[in-house]
């Protein structure tokens, strides 16, 4: 990665500016995920409501990142690693925006779930999974900040753990539903929550792949390791 300053110092300020916005977005998304999971576990509807409302700030930041990037491309005509930085920043912002939506969805469902009887152990498992995926997201962004290809590769590998957690939860919810059909509504909500958290992991992977592209100019070609998929056949 080229760390020399540009002769045009305003160019450096603009590039640093958009990257700072993306990191700010990441901070909000991580907090939203943690808060939403904690709201689910503690049945804290006020906290869930705050997460729902907080999503607007994340969306606004994404819009701002896009506006600034468009401007930067129009005005500075970035080339090589600068161009990849701008493109990466836009893609990361899009991924983070989706993650923000998933956190918001988790918060919404946790408000509904707060009215139902508890599914034993589910909220704790969801929180652990959310925590795991937050760490993955954090690693992906750390890799972005330091242009650390090794860390980015590690994130790609670790997404498998999230997938496995999701599969395990899926089976657990199925068992609950089969045991007692009155659990179905709650378990369906919990299942969507788990699926959404699993998708956040996919976005962390996407970000990691973008970091590899940013640092090397190439997307990784090797197939990403996947956990056994959940299909109707192997339920």
């Amino acid at each position, binding site marked *: 990665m080229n760390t020399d300053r540009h002769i045009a110092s*305003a160019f450096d300020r603009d590039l640093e500016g958009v990257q700072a916005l993306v990191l700010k977005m990441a901070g909000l998304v991580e907090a939203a995920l943690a808060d939403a999971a904690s709201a689910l576990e503690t049945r804290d509807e006020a906290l869930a409501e705050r997460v729902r409302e907080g999503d607007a700030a994340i969306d606004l930041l994404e819009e*701002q990142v896009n506006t600034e990037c468009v401007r930067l491309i*129009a*005005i500075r005509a970035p080339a090589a690693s600068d161009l990849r930085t701008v493109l990466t920043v836009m893609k990361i912002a899009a991924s983070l925006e989706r993650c923000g939506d998933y956190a918001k969805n988790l918060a919404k469902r946790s408000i509904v779930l707060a009215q139902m009887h508890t599914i034993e152990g589910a909220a704790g498992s969801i929180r652990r999974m959310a925590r795991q995926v937050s760490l993955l997201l954090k690693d992906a962004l750390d890799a972005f900040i330091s242009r650390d290809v090794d860390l980015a590769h590690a994130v790609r590998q670790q997404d498998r753990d999230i997938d496995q957690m999701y599969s395990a939860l899926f089976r657990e919810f199925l068992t609950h539903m089969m045991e007692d059909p009155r659990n179905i509504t709650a378990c369906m909500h919990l299942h969507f929550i788990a699926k959404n958290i699993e998708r956040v992991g996919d976005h962390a992977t996407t970000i990691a792949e973008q970091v590899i592209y940013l640092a090397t100019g190439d997307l990784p070609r090797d197939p990403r390791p996947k956990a056994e998929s959940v299909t109707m056949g192997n339920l």
Partner: protein
Amino acid sequence: MKDLRLERDVQTETNKIEARKVQVYYGTNHALKDVDVDILDKTVTAFIGPSGCGKSTFLRCLNRMNDTVASAKVQGAITLDGEDIYDARVDPVQLRAKIGMVFQKPNPFPKSIYDNVAYGPKIHGLTRTKAELDEVVEACLRKAALWNEVKDRLQSPGTGLSGGQQQRLCIARAIATSPEVLLMDEPCSALDPIATAQVEELIDELRSQFSVVIVTHSMQQAARVSQRTAFFHLGNLVEYGETGAIFTNPKDPRTESYITGRIG
């Protein structure tokens, strides 16, 4: 929300130059039609447009360089800080000390580096002692980001410098009379990309003290250095506005066609 905008924003809303209904004729040729423009203080304003669109003509109106063209006739009002620069009482030579100019090709005087910069302050009597003059020369060469390269050879001829250095010397010379406005007509067209970048960075620094107006054929340069952009076409001022807005979402279809390379 505002953190990024601040860097780019102009520091002032004060108009340095106001032009109203400016018309220029070269003989029977109506070269500039009804130009209204407010040029902000401490801001870089870029004039862009195809050849013959009137941008250089308008730039030359701003320090009355068109006075020297016999066939040129200028109508309308141009004010500097609210005062009419075409008023009969205004001495064009004094005016040009306040509104400095840098040209397309570096044109240092066939004198030493020192004398190139010292010339303006000397003839305008801006300094009293040699020590004072030395100070002005050093300060201007520093502002023009040239001091470190020439401080050990101030007495060698200015024409012996490289193109990029000569252009920065011309900028140092232009700011030596403490102008309030700096006009630049294609200041980088004879320079390589690195020297261009250095001059552009210099322009960005100069805007903390001056109002800079730059005519350029390079749209990318206009985008990079300016905060305001004016697009001229066939003698008309087509669009004038914030540079980012002009280059991402121009309002006039002619501006869009020009900046996207569809008309020229």
